[in-house]
């Protein structure tokens, strides 16, 4: 399942540039945590990271772990500077008013697992 299909299926809002070809991105796994030190230790490359943390540090952590995209849940809104930073780093930020629990459950139904 590619990222464009996931965005459509979950009705995610794309906060960073929409010009990217999301259908060419194939997330390999999923990870959920709001504690960035845990994400730095635990997230896998090309994973979808689900979090309600919207602080600017998520961009550097996402870039470090080479995640496929960050899904920011529960209506949390990153500041404009965070979105700009994500553009510079080539990190895709997606947003949803839905809960982390619901998003992870939906991703699981779509076939995404903890490891590739």
């Amino acid at each position: 399942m590619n990222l464009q299909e996931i965005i459509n299926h979950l009705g995610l809002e794309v906060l960073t540039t929409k010009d990217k070809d999301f259908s060419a991105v194939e997330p390999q796994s999923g990870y959920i945590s709001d504690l960035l030190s845990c994400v730095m230790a635990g997230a896998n490359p090309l994973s979808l990271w689900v979090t309600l943390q919207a602080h600017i540090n998520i961009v550097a952590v996402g870039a470090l772990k080479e995640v496929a995209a960050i899904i920011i849940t529960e209506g949390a809104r990153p500041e404009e500077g965070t979105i700009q930073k994500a553009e510079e780093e080539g990190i895709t930020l997606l947003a949803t008013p839905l809960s982390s629990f619901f998003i992870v459950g939906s991703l699981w139904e779509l076939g995404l697992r903890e490891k590739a």
Partner: protein
Amino acid sequence: MIPPLIIETALDKGIDLIGITDHNCSSNVEAVINASSGTGLIVLPGMEVQTREEVHTLCLFDSLVQIQAFQREIDGKLPDLKNKPEHFGSQLVVDQSGEFLGYEDRLLLTSVDISLNELFNLTNDLGGLFIPAHVDREVFGLIKNLGFIPQDIEIQILEISKNITVPDAYLRYPQIKDFPLIQSGDAHRLDEIMGFNRLYLESPTILGIKQAINQKMVEIIGFPNV
């Protein structure tokens, strides 16, 4: 922790300057400042704010005018929840002699709806000093929650808890190696006050403290070698 006993204990321990930093609240600051009048002890008004990211940060100021302006901003961002004293304890407001004035009814132990970066800018704009608190703690510490010190705000100094030494803190968290440290015991009771930080100040003000930090004139004294 009534104001006259705070003053007496600080003076007994040879402390020249204290900050009063209750959690998300400054209702008791004026009472302590008034109680210090004529004693020579300097009391700086402040607050320990819990940000949206659940990071605890100390915000220190020089004057009541500043902390009141700061409090107004925080008031607008504190969730509208009532304290439940049976679960969380009573939140008392007292006067300078320690007499009961009333209760703070709003739930203070929650997060204020402000990001760490917004809080830095608010504190800085009001002329205050911003110190991420007990950064090594697993709960409410900056490193656990945000991974590393944000690069886009000019944080000058960090506080470590009583559970770690300075060498161990630098060893365990290489991401803080460029920051000077203070250490605090996070005392919630008078008998919990342990060590202190020695700063050589030209003036006992926020500006004086910032200058001492810049000149690396900060020395940590009296904490256990954990």
